[in-house]
């Protein structure tokens, strides 16, 4: 359901076909997360940021239609405008600035046009500064209270081929979905990325294929 307050900023409508295609994926993620007590799910890819944003955004929306409260966090520093593709926000609050000045990650939360679907946006930031924030600002602990308030926290990670220190992202996730674009995929690179999950004891829900 859409909120009635008008928001500034631009958002596009969700793709009905994608919603249809990802319905079962959303249910599967929800079911497994509830059974195993998983609070955060990471959406990542080797080289398909657009597909990752699309999958995470549409699945977030489907989860709200299943009466769940969802928080979508953008940690893809290569695509800081990614959330704007589907969501309208006032754009005032961002992650790095908030955690630099406050103890509470919740202060970075923004509502979207959809009820029960909130986002945390990321601003333009260099990779070294971003990694420092992840390491020194204890994002992992700050996410915990949010996991209590939201049924699921979905995290959008950067493209693995452009971001070396993925361990900083993996440690935030309880479960993970890897998005792969058929036309540009490389099974060796994907296998390398997926094998790293094993090191962090993360539950892999599987692969979502972007067939466009």
């Amino acid at each position: 359901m859409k909120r009635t307050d008008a928001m500034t900023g631009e958002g596009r409508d969700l793709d009905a076909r994608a919603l249809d295609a990802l319905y079962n994926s959303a249910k599967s993620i929800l079911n497994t997360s509830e059974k195993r007590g998983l609070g955060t799910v990471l959406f990542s890819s080797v080289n398909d940021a657009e597909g990752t944003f699309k999958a995470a955004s549409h699945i977030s929306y489907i989860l709200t239609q299943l009466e769940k409260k969802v928080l979508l966090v953008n940690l893809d520093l290569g695509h800081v405008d990614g959330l704007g593709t589907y969501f309208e926000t006032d754009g005032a609050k961002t992650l790095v600035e908030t955690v630099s000045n406050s103890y509470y990650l919740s202060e970075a939360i923004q509502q979207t046009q959809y009820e029960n679907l909130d986002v945390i946006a990321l601003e333009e930031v260099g990779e070294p500064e971003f990694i420092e924030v992840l390491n020194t600002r204890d994002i992992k602990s700050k996410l915990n209270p949010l996991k209590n308030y939201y049924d699921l926290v979905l995290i959008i990670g950067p493209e693995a081929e452009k971001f070396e220190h993925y361990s900083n992202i993996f440690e935030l996730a309880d479960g993970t979905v890897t998005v792969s674009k058929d036309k540009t995929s490389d099974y060796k690179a994907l296998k390398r990325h997926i094998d790293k999950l094993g090191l962090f004891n993360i539950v892999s829900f599987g692969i979502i294929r972007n067939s466009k």
Partner: protein
Amino acid sequence: MHFLKRNFKTIVLYTLILGTTGTLVAYFLAGSTYDYEEYYSLSEPLTTTQEDELSIGLNQEINSQYEGQAASIGYSSESQYLSLNVDSMSQSELSTIKTQFDSMLEEMGIQYEDGVDVTITADSNAVFKLVIIGVSLLVGVILGIIHGIWNRRVETDEDVRYYLNEKTLGIF
């Protein structure tokens, strides 16, 4: 096994394309040579010297341009007929050789009437053609396999299972 299943169509396509190209090459290149035999009617029989001069002239002026002995004469002593035999030449080469031979006869002052009996046989070159087609098919298979190895895309659920040991959660 998965490799073959995955790349079967690619390999077949490459083989078909290369095989078709090879067949066309075989028929247009390999099939375009001819054996030629022409009888000349002589007003007077050739002397032994003239016969030898003709052979020498053939070798020096004509055969020297081609690998092997392309053109030769056939003559029985005191005969009124002289044959010119050419092996495995293209049509343009045949007409060049005939023109050169006719000039040689004229230079030697031999009077003749040509075109008495002309036989042109196309070389079948069957073995050569089969070799070309066979090699093309083999190259097609090899290229198809190379393409399969180079193609590391994950494009089906089977690829996800086989290469990544994961399941497909969804497709959009």
